[in-house]
């Protein structure tokens, strides 16, 4: 018997029991549809993630941390700052130079993230700042600029870029261009001693006291011009300032007694002793500015290599300099594993729906065989082999699965398209570039249809074996 005849006869039999077939197929449709949607979500999210990684150039980067034992790319980026004590190396300009000399490294960005700016104000509205980021604007770290421009190497002080959530809050939602060029206020923490701080001259102490202690130390307000608005999808509630400005903000201005001051003070003291009567010598102090960033080191660095293939070896070479270093491949792999596991779990849920559908197929086929017992007898009488009967019913069950798979994929596809439109509308309203969050690659379509067909086939094996086993004489006598 020809395969096309099997298919034609099976299709005809499916058509003959329309309602029952439709209900059975419907169950498969539900299963196939849920598998499709769930896998589509996961593959879509995965490729979205990968495209982000690609766009950021993350795979060509090595993150460098003062923590020597860091092995994870993301941890390395966020490990800096704070106290450097055990297993820790200061990330100095000297180290940056050595990293630049490592083979395959084409550039290094020094990163200084600090929380010394407490709030950002515009038009009387003051918003809390989570973080202030600063790094060499040499193109290694790439931002998605929604309006204006990113910081560049010629920026020194007085300019910032901010994430779009601030622009939204300041009333520029949908009009980010409107805030470009505007001046905002940056309010520091208390006891700020960096650039722009008005440091009080020391108290004249009579006896032991810290002349630099000013209990009424107030925050300083700096002003900055907004030059760019940046996509929030990577980081929210943060601003970026030029690295040079960050260096100045981190400076510590303090009155100290230099050797010259000491000598002057002693001279006054001697003068007093020579003079009879009360004498109140003036204490001499000098305002000393300390470059704290140079002293404490950068919070992290990012080295760019010529090719993502060399990232791992560059990371190893950089580690030999005594700093912590990690490339992104491990953490990207780890993230992908997470996506895969989520995909398996979600696909498994759809799989359960398909398993239930399989029970439906078994049931339908057993019923069909009972109904068509006599017909099976006739087929045997006119020359059908047992194996022919078995194939016929197996193919019929496979076709139930196949149609369920096809309709399920179509329905799933339709739903994901609708969901995509909604998601992109949502993203667009937040001025984020539209993405195909939900992907439905061809392999997935074919796999779901294939799996549904296979499930139908497997579900048909037992009923088909029963049909094949029927004794033709009995079958012909069956009422």
């Amino acid at each position, binding site marked *: *018997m020809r395969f096309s005849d099997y298919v034609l006869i099976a299709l005809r039999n499916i058509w003959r029991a329309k309602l029952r077939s439709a209900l059975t197929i419907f169950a498969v449709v539900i299963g196939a549809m849920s598998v499709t949607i769930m896998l589509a979500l996961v593959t879509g999210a995965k490729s979205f993630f990968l495209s982000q990684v690609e766009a950021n150039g993350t795979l060509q980067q090595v993150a460098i941390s003062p923590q020597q034992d860091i092995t994870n790319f993301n941890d390395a980026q966020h490990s800096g700052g704070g106290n450097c004590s055990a297993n820790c190396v200061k990330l100095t300009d000297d180290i940056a130079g050595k990293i630049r000399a490592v083979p395959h490294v084409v550039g290094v960005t020094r990163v200084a993230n600090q929380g010394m700016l407490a709030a950002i104000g515009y038009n009387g509205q003051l918003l809390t700042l989570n973080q202030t980021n600063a790094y060499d604007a040499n193109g290694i770290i790439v931002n998605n600029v929604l309006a204006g421009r990113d910081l560049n190497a010629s920026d020194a002080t007085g300019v910032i870029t901010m994430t779009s959530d601030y622009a939204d809050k300041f009333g520029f939602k949908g009009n980010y261009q409107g805030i470009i060029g505007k001046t905002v206020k940056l309010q520091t923490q208390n006891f700020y001693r960096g650039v722009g701080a008005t440091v009080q001259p020391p108290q004249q102490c009579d006896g032991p006291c810290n002349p630099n202690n000013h209990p009424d130390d107030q925050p300083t307000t700096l002003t900055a011009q907004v030059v760019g608005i940046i996509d929030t999808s990577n980081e929210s509630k943060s601003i970026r300032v030029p690295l040079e400005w960050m260096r100045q903000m981190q400076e510590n201005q303090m009155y100290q007694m230099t050797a010259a001051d000491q000598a002057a003070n002693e001279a006054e003291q001697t003068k007093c002793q020579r003079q009879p009567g009360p004498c109140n010598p003036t204490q001499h102090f000098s305002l000393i500015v300390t470059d704290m960033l140079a002293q404490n080191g950068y919070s992290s660095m990012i080295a760019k290599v010529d090719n993502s293939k060399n990232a791992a070896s560059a990371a190893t070479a950089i580690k030999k300099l005594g700093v912590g270093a990690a490339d992104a491949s491990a953490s990207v792999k780890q993230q992908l594993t997470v996506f895969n596991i989520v995909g398996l779990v979600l696909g498994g849920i759809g799989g359960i729906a398909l398993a239930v559908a399989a029970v439906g197929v078994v049931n339908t086929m057993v019923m069909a065989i009972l109904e068509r017992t006599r017909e099976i007898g006739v087929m045997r*009488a006119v*020359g*059908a*082999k047992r194996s022919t009967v078995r194939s016929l019913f197996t193919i019929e069950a496979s076709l139930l699965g196949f149609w369920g798979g096809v309709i399920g994929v179509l329905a799933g596809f339709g739903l994901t398209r609708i969901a995509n439109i909604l998601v992109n509308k949502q993203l667009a309203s937040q001025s984020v570039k539209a993405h195909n969050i939900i992907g439905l690659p061809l392999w997935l379509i074919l796999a779901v249809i294939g799996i549904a067909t296979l499930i139908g086939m497997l579900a048909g094996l037992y009923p088909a074996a029963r049909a094949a086993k029927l004794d033709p004489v009995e079958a*012909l006598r069956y009422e």
Partner: protein
Amino acid sequence: MADAEYVIELTNVTRTYKLGGETFNALDNVSLSVKPGEFIAIIGPSGSGKSTLANIIGGLDRPDNGTVLVDGNDISKLHDGQLSAYRNHHIGFVFQSFNLQGNNTTMENVMLPLVFAKLSRKERNARAIECLQSVGLGDRLKHKTNQLSGGQRQRVAIARALAVKPSIIVADEPTGNLDSARGQEIMSLLHKLNKEGITLLIITHDQSLANQAHRIVEIRDGKLTGRRG
């Protein structure tokens, strides 16, 4: 395949059923020889073993003992594939209750054995039309069989039996569901086929129909009791 004198040769055929521990012989040591082109009527009371005998000759059933030679080959020893091919190529069955697929057309019913014979679609169509014309249903090709009368249905069944050009037609009470006039029409049709060379075995209750055969075989309680002709 020797130039056998007999097309069918049953020797000591026994078919045993086990019913609740007891064994019961539906056919008991039956021997029967049929010459090529012979027309045999098998008669006997209900439950005597007529259908069992017909099914064994037609390769639908197997004996528990004895040999069934058809064209010199023992079909009781064939495996399922070979036996199915034997039914497909050599036997045409006609049943009392027609056993047609009511929702299918006469053409589709007649083509069914040809599907298993792996004929091309074109060949199947041509042969089905030919067979339906030879049973006088050339004008009913696209009719569903459940739209036909009893006599017409049995003629479709005969056309289906003829489709693969069998050497033997086994008809198990082919007139049992028909009135006597319709029955006689069917008998005449079968008779005509026999005259064209097909070996014909007919099971019937109707003595007057049996009398048209070359030979009558009577069976009682699974045993052949009388022969005439």
